[in-house]
């Protein structure tokens, strides 16, 4: 591969297609962290929830021999784990942070335990014939030259994610419920004093958090890859938490940060094939986000001064 091919590879429809494919699990992880922190509960178990859902999608679809039922089992697992954080922290008075840490370490080992029970392997689910969800060709759009190549032919869960992103946007900015959820996170006492059902809002936010992380997990084993491999989420949940940390309660910033990371991750995957030091290349996505945050902060400060 020459350098000319290399440069060209970033200006192709295929590259943008790849960026979307890379970004989906990251976007879902970011959404999960965002939803949980919106009402002030917080969920640092995104990684663990994704990992458990990854495995349950494989096991579920193997047991039922149906991709749809496998997905449902994965979603139930993810939501169940998120609700566990809610229950332990809200009803039983534990620190959500500690519950999250517990769930992460639990998931990392328990997935291997389950894997060993059902496959006799501690590495991957290679011996289980599990099901995957189909890829979707969008009629009409798929025939448009450039655009069709980018947006058509993705995994089913990619389109589910896009729909979720839009629905969440509408919920957060156009409905009273979204405002109420934000209010809970900003000042719980004040929210309660104006009659918002704080408990319900927190429950809902954890439900959404579990749901999105579970879809992220299922995406990893029901399309992106078709088998479960030990610790295969490989830090994507933590990237989501970091993205939420950078964006705060700004939903659009959350998506932008995650997309910057995804673009740089896709670039990195190409760069890594060249005779360059791989340790350095692997820092590109993180440096990219750091630069993004610096630019954003400088711009925001300037704007603030002008006011």
């Amino acid at each position: 591969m020459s350098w000319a091919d290399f440069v060209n590879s970033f200006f192709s429809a295929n590259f943008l297609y790849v960026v979307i494919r890379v970004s989906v699990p990251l976007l879902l992880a970011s959404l999960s962290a965002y939803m949980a922190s919106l009402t002030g509960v917080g969920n640092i178990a995104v990684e663990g929830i994704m990992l458990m859902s990854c495995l349950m999608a494989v096991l579920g679809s193997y047991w039922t021999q149906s991709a749809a039922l496998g997905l449902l089992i994965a979603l139930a697992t993810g939501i169940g784990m998120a609700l566990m954080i809610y229950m332990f922290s809200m009803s039983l008075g534990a620190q959500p942070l500690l519950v999250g840490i517990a769930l992460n370490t639990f998931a990392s080992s328990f997935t291997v335990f389950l894997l060993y029970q059902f496959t006799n392997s501690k590495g991957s689910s290679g011996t289980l014939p599990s099901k995957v969800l189909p890829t979707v060709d969008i009629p009409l759009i798929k025939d448009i030259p450039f655009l069709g190549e980018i947006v058509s032919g993705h995994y089913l869960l990619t389109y589910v994610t896009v729909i979720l992103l839009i629905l969440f946007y509408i919920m957060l900015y156009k409905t009273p419920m979204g405002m109420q959820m934000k209010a809970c996170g900003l000042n719980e006492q004040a929210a309660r004093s104006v009659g918002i059902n704080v408990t319900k809002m927190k429950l809902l936010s954890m439900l959404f958090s579990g749901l999105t992380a579970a879809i992220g997990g299922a995406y990893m084993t029901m399309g992106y890859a078709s088998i479960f491999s030990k610790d295969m989420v490989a830090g994507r949940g933590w990237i989501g938490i970091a993205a939420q940390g950078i964006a705060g309660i700004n939903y659009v910033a959350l998506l932008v940060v995650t997309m910057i990371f995804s673009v740089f991750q896709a670039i990195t995957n190409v760069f890594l094939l060249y005779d360059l030091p791989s340790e350095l290349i692997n820092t590109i996505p993180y440096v990219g986000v750091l630069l993004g945050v610096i630019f954003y902060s400088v711009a925001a400060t300037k704007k603030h001064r002008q006011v």
Partner: protein
Amino acid sequence: MKKMMKKTVTVLLAVMMLTIGVIGCGSDTDESAEGEKIYKIAFVVPYIGDQSYWDLVDRGRQIVDAYDNVETTLIEAGEDTSKWTSVMTDVCESGYDLIVSGNDTYEYYLYEAAENYPDQLFFNFEFGTAQEYDNVYAVKYNTAELGYVAGLLSCAVTTSDMEKANDDKVIGVIVGMENDAMDDFIGGYCQVANSMGVQVIIGYPESWTDVAKAKEMTLNMINSGADVIWQVAGGAGNGVFEACAEENVYALGVDQDQYEQFIESKPEYANVILTSFVKNAQIGIQTAVDKLIAGEYPGGVIENFGIAQDGVGLIENDYYLETVPEDVRNQVEEALEEVKNGNVEVFSVLNGDSAEWQKIKSEAQEAK
């Protein structure tokens, strides 16, 4: 009276000592019905069931366990190395004829025990940094030569007119991490490619677990014309098979017969895996046990098993024989003979000069 007492105590003590002696002997009668000595061998590993490295060792254990005069015990000591000293001490105190353990991560505890128990025999089945003890026999499998075999087949396939091979003379390899131990796998691989004018694309995902990243990198390799891709990336390597199955190009496995691993459950994976390159760990274990039984245990010897000793090689399963045409297979066989005869010296990253490795690596990655 006092004298009497003393005598009684002495007699009692003597009886006790005798009894203990007899009981001790009783448990020591390691003889089968025909009066043949039974060799008790302990295998101390962190765990088995990874369908990779540790299972290779376990397969070696099963082979020697099938001997009539060998009895093996498998001890899964766990990954927590802080427990290994006490586990090793326990094993050493249990009167085994041979203790098999080792590998880069755990050999420290083996050598520690070897120093404390100079009469106990040990076998380090794959050393990282060998130490010389009279009671330790240590072997290693030549990963450089393993990579050499992989390179031979990759180059032979990409230059052939096999079904999934394209016109570009490009091959790829996904290596889990960039370090000398891992680069040793691809030193010989690049050497072959250079001698045959084939371009190599090397990808380091810097992860043993990130299946998705390995898949993305493999897809990029395939886009650049690679049609045979070898994985040396542990669990992440499954991403290589995923990508190769999607794009219909050849993949090569490592450490175990990966075709066999997937043929039942994921035939779409299996049908792109031409063969796998393995360390024949059983050869070392068998050699050690055979010599132990023959009474000539090579304590203090440090050995390197390569192509010449059949210590490394590829798996010739039915699928390989069926899919790879005879002329390609012969080409590989002939090149291997050259190594066995000593006409070709395989470059090793671990023993070689790092400047030379950089040169070989850069040359291999140049567009041809």
